[in-house]
């Protein structure tokens, strides 16, 4: 094959190839070219995003491990650490939704237990095209079943997440999986190979031709049927991963382990050279000793295979028998495939010959870094604020509310989360369908709250605001359950970074995330970037998804999102402006996707979080619900619906100098809806004044109806049961269409 074709097949540019040649002082052989191809890919090297990601705040008093390891680690007190990360599996989930989503969950779980943590909670952020398209329905069904299959089999509860529907994700779904684990603070394992002569073990499933990157397609050496030449979809085996989890955690209790890393993207290649580079060491591996699923695999295929449920570890010399005994107990293979060397090289042996020999740091640390061109798209400047007066006033707001509750983005996601086991391990305090998932930390009075949020529509119209609002909304969700944020992880889903407009979106979103994280004192401890999310040349909405983890010191102070008692007073914390730009109301009711997203004043937002912290720790709130998609109207409606089918009515009366639809559906940021027992009202008012947060009493809970009056005029009067039925069944109805 001539060089240009070979480079194209390996997705390397001529400049990148020349760099490789000058670093090595020779031409790479085919195996080495494969190593560079995967390690210098966007996915592994972050070559387009690295210059921007450097701007994110990654340090904080509680951060034990920031970006660069398998997952971030944050001190949560009581001698414990929370280990968490979010990662995308978008493209595989489009090709084969069930296995793609399942292996996404499997991959993120491995990232967590690799660090020495026992995974205790999962979440996922899912985005699909409209359910009116049959293919989107099948992607949704497959992805959800795949997530359920993997998480449920592993016995880890899925406690929350988000599901969004937009045209922009038509045939380009986003599947971002999050996992959180708990480890003793003193026993975090890192992935740096150390100690010359220490044995390198391969443990877990055998290597097959799974997911070998597209380059092999073009090598035209196979003679099987054409369809079999395509890269093979990875198939997950959660029961194997469960064994691997238990075996690894047991090994970590022993004194045999030096370092450990899972084999994810780029498999054996990535784990070997990254572990070597982190420790400044070399690693020699013999491919003949790698357990294989099928015969006749080439060195190239073994190095690049992405077979699931495999780990690479470095043990202390002399402790080999201990490693083997533990893995034997769990019925798993552990093969010593190599050793740590001092020369800094990744040396690969096959059939007694050296088939690749490259310095680890060239592969892992010295990949290309691009400062790609940025260009603000012309459409950005034309976005203006949209006010209620800019659209026709609906004649029947009750009907409008029903229409909004039927929007698949707003409707109940129970059809989805009921497929996930959300109670296993019996620590889940707040279940999916709420502002945040909350899990108890057994043996302590604490609970951890976590949520995943993003708004691609906001980010497409103003990427800076989209990034900042995602952080603000996540932190607000945690504030609503009574938690204080301690760390965050991000998954940045964008289009083609070689397009200046996409790169501008990316840079803006990173700035927005940075500013919000700095203001709220929440460091980013890790995450993932997914570029090239395009179908037929059209990019998805730029979609930064933020996962935030927070602590509730006393789990009994955790607050629910739904009204608890009749006769409680309903308060709106924060101020409402007439901001309909980019709103769900504009899209669902007026079929418009435009306008400036709602403003975000970080100081106003921070004041609200401060008020919530004091109010929840003094147990002043009976319920609290963050305002986001659909604004106040939707927040009121959702507060009427309990998670187990219980409902409560409300009588609401609001005075505001604007039209009723602007009051109900404006998506002004920095607001929370709360219900308060009458005896707590004075204390709450004093607190709100001290924090400088406007507080308005807008109603009282009770009854079986939702009655809303605005400026003295009747706006909505509906039976709660009818509203709930609409909201509860909208996705099922969409799936059966």
């Amino acid at each position: 094959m001539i060089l240009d074709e070979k480079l194209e097949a390996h997705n390397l540019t001529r400049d990148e190839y020349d760099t490789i040649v000058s670093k090595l002082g020779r031409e790479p052989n085919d195996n080495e070219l494969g190593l560079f191809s995967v390690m210098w890919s966007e996915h592994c090297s972050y070559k387009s995003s690295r210059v921007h990601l450097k701007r994110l705040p990654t340090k904080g008093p509680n951060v034990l491990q920031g970006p660069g390891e398998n997952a971030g680690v944050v001190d949560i007190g009581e001698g414990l650490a929370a280990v968490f990360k979010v990662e995308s599996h978008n493209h595989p989930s489009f090709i084969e939704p069930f296995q793609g989503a399942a292996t996404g969950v499997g991959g993120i779980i491995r990232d967590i237990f690799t660090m020495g943590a026992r995974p205790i909670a999962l979440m996922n952020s899912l985005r699909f095209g409209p359910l009116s398209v049959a293919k989107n329905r099948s992607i949704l069904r497959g992805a959800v079943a795949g997530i359920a299959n993997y998480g449920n089999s592993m016995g880890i509860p899925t406690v929350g997440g988000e599901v969004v529907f937009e045209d922009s994700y038509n045939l380009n779904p986003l599947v971002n999986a999050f996992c959180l684990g708990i480890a003793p603070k003193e026993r975090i394992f890192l992935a740096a190979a150390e100690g010359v002569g220490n044995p390198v073990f391969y443990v877990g499933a055998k290597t097959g031709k799974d997911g070998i990157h597209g380059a092999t397609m073009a090598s035209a050496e196979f003679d099987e049927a054409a369809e079999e030449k395509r890269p093979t979809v990875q198939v997950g085996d959660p029961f194997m991963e469960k064994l691997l989890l238990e075996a690894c955690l047991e090994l970590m209790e022993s004194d045999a382990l030096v370092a450990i890393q899972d084999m994810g993207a780029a498999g054996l290649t990535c784990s070997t050279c990254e572990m070597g580079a982190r420790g400044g060491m070399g690693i020699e591996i013999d491919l003949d000793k790698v357990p294989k699923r099928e015969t006749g695999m080439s060195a190239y295929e073994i190095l690049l295979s992405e077979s699931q449920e495999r780990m690479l570890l470095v043990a202390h010399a002399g402790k080999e028998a201990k490693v083997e005994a533990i893995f034997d107990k769990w019925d798993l293979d552990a093969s010593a495939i190599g050793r740590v060397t001092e020369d800094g090289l990744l040396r690969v042996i096959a059939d007694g010959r050296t088939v690749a020999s490259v310095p680890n740091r060239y592969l892992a640390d010295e990949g290309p870094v691009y400062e790609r061109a940025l260009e603000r798209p012309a459409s950005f400047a034309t976005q203006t604020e949209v006010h209620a007066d800019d659209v026709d006033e609906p004649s029947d707001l009750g009907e409008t509310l029903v229409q909004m509750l039927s929007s698949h983005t707003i409707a109940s996601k129970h059809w989805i989360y009921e497929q996930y086991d959300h109670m296993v391990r019996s620590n889940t305090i707040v279940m999916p369908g709420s502002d945040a998932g909350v899990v108890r930390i057994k043996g302590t009075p604490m609970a951890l709250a976590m949520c995943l949020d993003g708004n691609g529509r906001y980010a497409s119209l103003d990427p800076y605001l989209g990034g900042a609002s995602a952080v603000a909304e996540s932190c607000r969700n945690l504030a609503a359950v009574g938690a204080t944020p301690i760390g965050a992880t991000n998954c940045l889903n964008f289009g083609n970074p070689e397009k200046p407009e996409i790169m501008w979106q990316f840079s803006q979103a990173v700035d927005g995330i940075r500013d919000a994280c700095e203001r709220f004192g929440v460091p980013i401890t890790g995450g993932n970037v997914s570029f090239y999310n395009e179908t037929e040349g059209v990019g998805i909405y730029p979609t930064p998804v933020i996962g935030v983890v927070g602590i509730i010191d006393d789990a009994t102070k955790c607050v629910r999102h739904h009204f608890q008692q009749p006769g409680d007073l309903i308060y709106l914390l924060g101020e409402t402006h007439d901001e309909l730009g980019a709103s769900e109301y504009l899209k669902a009711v007026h079929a418009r996707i435009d306008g400036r997203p709602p403003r975000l004043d970080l100081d106003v937002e921070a004041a609200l979080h401060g008020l919530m912290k004091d109010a929840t720790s003094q147990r002043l709130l009976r319920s609290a619900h963050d305002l986001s998609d659909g604004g106040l109207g939707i927040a009121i409606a959702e507060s009427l619906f309990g998670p187990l089918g219980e409902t409560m009515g409300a009588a609401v009366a609001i005075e505001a100098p604007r039209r009723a639809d602007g009051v109900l559906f404006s998506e002004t940021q920095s607001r929370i809806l709360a219900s308060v027992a009458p005896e707590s009202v004075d204390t709450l008012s004093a607190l709100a004044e001290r924090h400088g947060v406007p507080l308005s009493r807008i109603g009282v809970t009770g009854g079986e109806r939702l009655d809303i009056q605005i400026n003295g005029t009747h706006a909505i009067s509906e039976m709660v049961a009818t509203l709930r039925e609409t909201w509860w069944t909208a996705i099922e109805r969409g799936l059966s269409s």
Partner: protein
Amino acid sequence: MKANVIIKLKSAVHDPQGETIGHALAGLEYDQVTSVRQGKIFELTLDVSSKEEAASMAREIAERVLSNPVLEVFEVEVED
């Protein structure tokens, strides 16, 4: 007319179920079994008049409904 649709995973696709069965066989001391791959069979009874018609209908059903072309391959056998 009867048509059997036999569905197998593509040769390079990981088969955890087959591996588990293989592992169980090894535990029962069937040491000569070196590999197990599992699949499924659908027996279709078709009201058509020719073997050719049966084969083409079974193939269409196998391709569109019964198999997952990303992971699986199929064969069709027609009985009289």
